[in-house]
């Protein structure tokens, strides 16, 4: 019988401590040699940090082919998340999502996914040539945001595309909306389709109490958990999780197609230590986070005109559960666009929030927050409402525009193309992506028809100060389209 897992261990971290004490003389990369070669950088980041910025070597294992301490650390992570295998990722959750898609699909194969996925999922389709079948999410008319993947929508997509190989779900969405993951898995598996879950915003589901079901627990085959979001690790670090059904060796080869051979040990050790922290103290941590978010929601309610939505939006169809750690706030009723509030908070109140869209803002609440910071956020919202409230008229309300797919993203991306002014692009087929960043969900994806509605949306987003990305033209005044 296997011994009980000791989650207090952090094998990679422990190996790095040992390594530091050995005072090894470095005649390998990185060339800064424990920071001595770059004093200004060492001063800025701290000696401690630079002293462990090392290359892979026997005592510290190798991420591309792990056999010792990284393998042990990944095993602990897999157990902590209830997965069979875990892969530490140093190219963000973007890398993890890409790997899931590249593992599940080859050129020309179909994948069923909601359109409101992160750019990383659709970008992966450009890389592998798979064809997207979109399940258009329902839109909440008051909040203006896309909801979860409905079981009915999935069933219809499967009926129309019985040859699809995989289903990808983003669960939860950025706003905290969860789909009925268990049912989705059951339906997809009954048709021999793999289930890939973009769990970028739900790394905490495996650790907190009374959380929505996690991807692995729901029986998904692959999941990408953004440890650097709610998990507390360093930016750019993430974990790819796989179930028993997945061929671990093949998945590693897929990961290694695009991931660096010089993985940062700062990122890797942060994953090991965050996993340790979550498995030891996850329940208390997320209890506190939920408490802070719930407190903020209560206070925001008292302001008036501003609505911090929560589990009351669960309808059992398009919203099957809600992640209450997400402090999503509707500002539209005060006549102020979310993107405006996002900018005002930063420029005038020195408060940086996660993102703003047409009607909402999202404040990311985590274990690092203090009650007094929540008070500041709430007061700033109260002040913005008091001093800037306008009529709601003329506000753009819908966040999601149903796409018309003409070509696969890869076909469109690699076709003969030309640039046309945004205003004259209606009716053309886009060969690039346009998204507001954050949240990074494409307004327009390669292969989709540009409609007047999309052009209007892009113009409006620009006028409200939204930062638009993805196009060749940094000013987003021209779009790259299929050559006539």
């Amino acid at each position, binding site marked *: 019988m296997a011994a009980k897992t000791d989650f207090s261990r952090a094998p990679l971290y422990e190996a790095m401590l040992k390594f530091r004490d050995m005072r090894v003389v470095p005649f390998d990369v990185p060339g800064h040699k424990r920071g001595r070669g770059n004093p200004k950088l060492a001063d800025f980041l701290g000696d401690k940090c630079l002293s462990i910025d090392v290359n892979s070597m026997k005592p510290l294992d190798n991420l591309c082919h792990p056999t010792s301490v990284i393998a042990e650390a990944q095993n602990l992570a897999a157990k902590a998340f209830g997965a069979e295998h875990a892969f530490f990722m140093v190219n963000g959750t973007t890398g993890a999502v890409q790997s899931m898609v590249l593992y599940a699909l080859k050129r020309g194969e179909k994948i069923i996914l909601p359109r409101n996925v992160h750019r990383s999922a659709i970008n992966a389709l450009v890389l592998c040539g798979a064809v997207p079948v979109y399940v258009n999410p329902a839109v909440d008319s008051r909040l203006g945001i896309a909801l979860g993947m409905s079981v009915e929508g999935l069933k219809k997509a499967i009926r129309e595309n019985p040859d699809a190989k995989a289903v990808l779900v983003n669960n939860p969405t950025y706003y905290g909306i969860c789909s009925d993951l268990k049912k989705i898995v059951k339906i997809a598996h009954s048709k021999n389709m793999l289930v890939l879950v973009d769990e970028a915003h739900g790394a905490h589901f495996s650790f907190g109490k009374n959380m929505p079901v996690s991807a692995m627990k729901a029986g998904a085959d692959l999941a990408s958990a953004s440890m650097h979001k709610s998990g507390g690790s360093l930016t750019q670090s993430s974990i790819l999780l796989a179930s028993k059904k997945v061929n671990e060796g093949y998945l590693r080869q897929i990961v290694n197609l695009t991931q660096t051979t010089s993985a940062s040990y700062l990122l890797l050790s942060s994953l090991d230590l965050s996993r340790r922290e979550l498995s030891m103290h996850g329940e208390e941590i997320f209890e506190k986070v939920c408490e802070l978010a719930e407190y903020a929601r209560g*206070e925001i309610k*008292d302001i008036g005109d501003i609505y911090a939505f929560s589990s009351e939006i669960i309808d059992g169809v398009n919203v099957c559960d809600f992640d209450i750690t997400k402090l999503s706030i509707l500002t539209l009723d005060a006549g102020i666009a979310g993107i405006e509030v996002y900018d005002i908070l930063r420029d*005038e*109140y*020195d408060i940086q929030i996660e993102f703003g869209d047409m009607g909402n803002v999202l404040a990311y609440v985590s274990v690092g927050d203090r*009650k*007094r910071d929540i*008070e*500041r956020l*709430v*007061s*700033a919202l*109260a*002040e913005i409402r*008091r*001093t800037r409230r306008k009529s709601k008229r003329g506000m753009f309300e819908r966040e999601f525009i149903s796409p018309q797919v003409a070509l696969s993203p890869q076909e469109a991306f690699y076709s003969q193309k030309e640039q046309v002014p945004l205003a004259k692009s209606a009716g053309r087929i886009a060969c690039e992506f346009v998204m507001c960043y954050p949240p990074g969900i494409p307004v327009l994806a390669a292969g989709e028809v540009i409609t007047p509605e999309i052009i209007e949306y892009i113009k409006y987003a620009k006028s409200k100060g939204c930062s638009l990305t993805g196009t060749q033209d940094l000013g987003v005044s021209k779009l790259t389209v299929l050559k006539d």
Partner: protein
Amino acid sequence: MSLWFTEKQTENVGFSIKVSRQLFSKKSDFQKIEIFDSEEFGRFLALDGIMMLTEKDEHIYHEMIAHPAMAVHPRVKDVLVIGAGDGGVLRELARYKSIRHIDVVEIDEDVVEAAKEFLPQTACGFKDPRVDLHFEDGVRFVRRKSDCYDLIIVDSTDPFGPGEGLFTKEFYGGCNKALRKDGILVNQHESPFYKDDAAAMARTHKHIFKRFPIAKVYQAHIPTYPSGHWLFGFASKKYHPLKNLNSDKWNSLKIKTRYYNTNLHSGAFALPTYVEEMLKDVE
């Protein structure tokens, strides 16, 4: 052996007082509270290693934060004091019979408890029956008040700890809302001298200036505060601190003070050139 308390006023400057004994030390939910006795300055209170008051010079601070506004506003009835865990501001306000009610909002109950036990010189202010004590975050308290105070006094710690929220635009906006249409806001305004304090002082003025039609700054000399040169903010929706000063009326009240007087009142608003420039830069 001799024991010295040193406050790091900047990374490179220390201010030391020889301590005869430590009376109290506690880590509260918000900060470390310490009270010492000293030969030179008498008893003193430090929060997170920063000197808050000494028996020898606290009267300067407390008189200067309370009396100037009282000498300008013709009828202060309802007062809100934020911070003031030591009670010193209340002691000064309690001398005005015209005041009807004083709400005090202090985030850290432990400071008040410690003051009541060890700092009777200032904590006597809590005994006034008009005082209502609330233990909560001042940022939250003002958010829920509108049009109900004639005077708000912000007696905060520095903006690098639990008092941080009391130096923000959202807080001053809340104060504006909580004040009546002729209300006055007086705040602890940091010092213009050392770099970090000066940056906080400029930022504070910037925020207040945006929220109030009249936003002036006045000064006092407080030996135990960094550089000794300390500022206060006077912001108002209606009254000008000099044009509306009613010296005769205030003097007729016969309030006995050691630092403040109505001549000094006018002088305190005359600022050094470099301070005027710093203020102008953010207006």
